[in-house]
Each structure stands twice: as structure tokens, then as C-alpha cells.
């Protein structure tokens, strides 16, 4: 582009043409009106635009408009070698990049047939960092959710604790959020010396904070009144819409891909799957969804402790250990279609690959993003709710627009 090129020609119809409303003004009944929520609105957690038809304070219809954060992941992936796609994978779910990287690397390794050769120390480190990132993602989800419905303190407290995780992961990889740490066939680098001890210190620090969180948010009467019996998602609807992750578990199904598919070293690790039980209201309401996330934090801590235990005893650091030893020189799988899935903090994250050339480049790399499917249920569960509850329901879905829009 030349230096003085005109970058934008304003025209009053541009916006209407690029993202028109679905509801025609002439179809509205006399009491109804259209409220446009977003795309720049803090409670939409990114750039989601909602077209809300309301009758007074009751919601008649919610129509999501996405694509404001579309970065052409699948188009870029057509021209990039497998290892260079990893930084793009980071930017899908930018709040849980390690989990996405782990699942992506696992998929490519299975295509190459080298997944059995990965040393256990590497797999334990991968699970350790992925669980740390899961904690950080849930902190962001719960903290921002509490702020959505009017409590400011939990957000600051969660951000304070999340900062420790960010710094731990920065120590590991050099970056705070977008790591490019898990590589196909290995890792960028071994854990820094002293990391295990510091990480254990963090676990001990965090446990009382989670108890505090339980008292401050989950058992808070205002919070319960705002979330219990709101946005109830029945189990059959959840499955039919492809909802996964904490949202599906909150609806009462004990379904976690870490157990179901038993990938990586998860079968060697002891942890439980919390589900929603309708303690404060009905099964599958907003409170249950938040509660499942908080319970999962405890389980992640258990996983982290077991990983550190293994990483300091059976699979302890040795001088001979090289995390890059297994990296394939050329990433050229057989010609095939392959789908690989795993449990990211938001749900089932899947990568579909088609490889049909002799290059390092996939012919197609499609992302099955959990947030995309989770968000699609929003227009069902908001029907008949109050306008103020719409914010509560949106926050409880805990989506990241980077993954919805890709």
C-alpha cells in the first residue's frame, strides 16, 4: 500500500451492508424493540455483537453476530508448515494457549506415528504447563464473570493469582500468554532450574486462595441470587448443540476427554471430574457452570502436584535430557485425513488435518473450537430471560472470541 493511500471511505450504508440486522423493523410487534449489544462492550468478553429483541425487559430473541476477530487462521494454515502453525494456534484461545498447543502437537505426532516415542518427562511437562494454563483460564473466566454481575473484588483477586501463573509460564517459555513452547515431538526447552520447587510453592499459596474464592463468590448470597436458576441448560439440548467442557458437565454429564480418550499421561494421574448438581438451584444453571470451573481448579492443582512429584523423582532432570532430541527434521506424514481432539479449558478442541502433498504443509487444517459450539446455544437458553440476566448467562458460557472467530 502506498504511503498516502486512502484507508477508508466512509459511507453511511457500509455497516448495514457488512453486518445487517436479521430482524426487520416491520416485523416487530408494537411492544418490541431491538437492542444492539456490542461488539465493543466489556461484558461480551471480546468482540461479540448481539442483536437482542426485547419486549420490555423480557428477551424475545437473541441473534449473535460474529466475525469481528476473524484472522483467517484456516487460510493462513494452507500456506504454512506444521511447526509454523503453532504460533497461530496460540492465538486461537489466547487465554489457554498451552492447552491448544498440546492438542495440536499431539495430533501431528499421531499423524507421524511418533506419539509413543515421546519421553515421559516431556509429556509430564506438557501436562504440567497445560494444567497451569487451565487454572489461569478458569481464573479469568470466573473473575471476569463476577465482575460482569457487579462484584469488582473477585476480578482483582483472580488477576493477582493469575499473574503468578503468567510469571511462572514466562519463566518457562519467555512469553506471558502466547508461548510457542510445546513443539511437535518435544518442547522448546526443559523446565528452568528451580521451577518445580517454585511451582509447588505456588500450589501451597493457591489453596487458601481457592477457599477464599469459594466464600467470596460461590457462597455469596448476591452471587447466588444472580446466577441460581438462571440460564438453565438441559442435558439433551447441550448434547444436541455440541456443547462440551465445563458447560456440559454442569448440565450433569460426567464427560471429560482427559478420561474418555485417556490421552497423554492423564491415565497415570488421579483426578476427579466435577459435575453440576444443582446445589443452589437447578442442574445446569449459571451457578453450576461457575461452580464446576472452581471445582476444576482444585482438580488441576491435584494434577500439578502429581506431575511435580513425578518430575522430581522418576522422571527427574538429567544432564543428558534434551527436549528437542525427538523433533522430526521433516514433518511429512502419510497422505491421510486425521482428526485429533482433546480437552481444553472450554471443552472439546479438535483439529482436522488433510495431508495430500509431499511438503510439510497441510492441505487443510480445520479447528473445531469448543467456544464456537458452546456459544451457539446462547439463543436457546436466553429465551424468556430478563435483559439483566443476559449478561449473567453470557459470562457463564466463558467463551473467548479469538477461538469463535478464528
Amino acid at each position, binding site marked *: 500500500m502506498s504511503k498516502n493511500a486512502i484507508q477508508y471511505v466512509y459511507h453511511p450504508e*457500509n455497516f448495514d451492508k457488512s453486518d445487517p440486522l436479521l430482524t426487520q423493523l416491520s416485523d416487530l410487534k408494537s411492544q418490541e424493540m431491538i437492542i444492539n449489544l456490542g461488539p465493543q462492550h466489556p461484558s461480551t468478553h471480546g468482540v461479540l455483537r448481539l442483536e437482542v429483541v426485547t419486549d420490555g425487559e423480557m428477551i424475545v430473541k437473541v441473534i449473535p453476530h460474529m466475525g469481528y476477530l476473524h484472522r483467517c487462521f484456516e487460510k493462513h494454515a494452507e*500456506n504454512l508448515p506444521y511447526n509454523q502453525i503453532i504460533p497461530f494456534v496460540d492465538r486461537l484461545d489466547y487465554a489457554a494457549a498451552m492447552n491448544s498447543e498440546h492438542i495440536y502437537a499431539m495430533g501431528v505426532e499421531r499423524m507421524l506415528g511418533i506419539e509413543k516415542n515421546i519421553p515421559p518427562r516431556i509429556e509430564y511437562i506438557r501436562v504440567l504447563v497445560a494444567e497451569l494454563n487451565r487454572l489461569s483460564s478458569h481464573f479469568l473466566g470466573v473473575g471476569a464473570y463476577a465482575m460482569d454481575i457487579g462484584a469488582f473484588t473477585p476480578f482483582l483477586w483472580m488477576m493477582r493469582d493469575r499473574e503468578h501463573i503468567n510469571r511462572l509460564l514466562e519463566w518457562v517459555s519467555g512469553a506471558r500468554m502466547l508461548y510457542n513452547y510445546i513443539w511437535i515431538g518435544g518442547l522448546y526447552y526443559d523446565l528452568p532450574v528451580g521451577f518445580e520447587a517454585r511451582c509447588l510453592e505456588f500450589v501451597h499459596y493457591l489453596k487458601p486462595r481457592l477457599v477464599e474464592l469459594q466464600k467470596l463468590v460461590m457462597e455469596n448470597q448476591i452471587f447466588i441470587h444472580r446466577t441460581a436458576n438462571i440460564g438453565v441448560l438441559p442435558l439433551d439440548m447441550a448434547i444436541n448443540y455440541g456443547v462440551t467442557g465445563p458447560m456440559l458437565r454442569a448440565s450433569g454429564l460426567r464427560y471429560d476427554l482427559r478420561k474418555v480418550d485417556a490421552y497423554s499421561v492423564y491415565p497415570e494421574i488421579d483426578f476427579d471430574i466435577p459435575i453440576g448438581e444443582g446445589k443452589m438451584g437447578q442442574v445446569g444453571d449459571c451457578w453450576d457452570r461457575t461452580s464446576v470451573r472452581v471445582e476444576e481448579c482444585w482438580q488441576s492443582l491435584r494434577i500439578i502436584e502429581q506431575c511435580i512429584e513425578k518430575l522430581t523423582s522418576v522422571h527427574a532432570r538429567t544432564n543428558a535430557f534434551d527436549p528437542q532430541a525427538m523433533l522430526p527434521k521433516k514433518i511429512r506424514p502419510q497422505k491421510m485425513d486425521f482428526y485429533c481432539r482433546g480437552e481444553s479449558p472450554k471443552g472439546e478442541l479438535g483439529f482436522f488435518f488433510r495431508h495430500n502433498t509431499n*511438503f510439510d504443509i497441510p492441505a487443510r487444517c*480445520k479447528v473445531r473450537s469448543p467456544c464456537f459450539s458452546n456459544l*451457539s446455544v446462547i439463543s436457546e437458553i436466553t429465551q424468556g430471560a430478563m435483559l439483566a440476566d443476559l449478561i449473567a448467562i453470557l459470562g457463564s458460557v466463558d467463551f473467548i472470541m479469538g477461538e469463535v472467530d478464528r
Partner: protein
Amino acid sequence: MTFLEIKNLLIQKFGDQVILQEVPGLQPQLVVAAYEIVDVCSFLKNNANTFFDSLSCITALDNSTVEQSFDIIYHLYSIPHEHHLIIKVTIDRGNENIQPNIDSISSVYRTADWHEREAFDFFGIIFNKHPDLRRILLPSDWEGFPLRKDYQQQKYYHGIEVASVATSDTKI
């Protein structure tokens, strides 16, 4: 049920006019005739032995301009039985007059609703009887379908110069 059992069950029910062939591999696929996709999916969902209650993913692929076809791949999963099935459908690429089209399975799986909109957005595949077939990620007035192999990027969008993307000719 194993892949072979499901395949035999489907051939028994629909015959080999509909269940065309099997693509072997690490994850075997079943090629199904496009015009019966809704019936096959609803049979698989409602049969107690298969009970594929969830649809993980729908992927559309362009098989190149030489073969003149699109693939659509459905990943079905049964939560209680813990078995997978991958269904592959090949449809004609169409021409200026006829757009590529296939029946929508969003009446069987609601997951398909948005996934099919995405396939329409990127490949221009029309899903018949879809409740709300609009572009989902790109702006409504974007020209062309970006993931097609013969996609030509527009030069300007609302007067903004569109940055050029590296093409597959500039491969390493």
C-alpha cells in the same frame, strides 16, 4: 460397535447404492451418497445400537479444480457407546448456474447449524433447508469464498485496500 459392524448395519439398511465405499487408514471413513445424508444421520442417531448423539465437527474441503468436487466430512460420536464414525460425502463443484449443494442435517444435529454456515461462508456450499444460511465469520458483502482453490481476492473492501495473502505458489 466397531467400524465394520456399523458399516454392515448401514449397508443392510440402505444398500450399497447409498453406502458407497470405505476409505481405509488410521481413521477409516465411510463414503455416503450425498442425497441420503439426512436419512443416514437420523438413522444413526435414533438406532439404539449406534446412538450417535453428538456431532463433533463438520469440515468442508476443496478437492482442487481438477477433480471439480468438494468433500464434506462429518465426525459423529456416541457419548454412551464411546464410538466414532467418520462420514465422507463428495459433492459436485457446480458451475456459474448451479451452486454446489447438499441437504442440511441441522434438523438432526443442531451443532450442524453453525458449522454449515461456516462451510457456506468459506466454500459457498448451499445447504438445502438450512434454517438460517448466512455468512457467519466474514462480512455479508464479502466477495467470493476464500477457501476455494480458485479464489480471487477482491482488491478493495469499502475503499480499504485488502492486504495480499501469500499464495501457495510462494511455498518454501
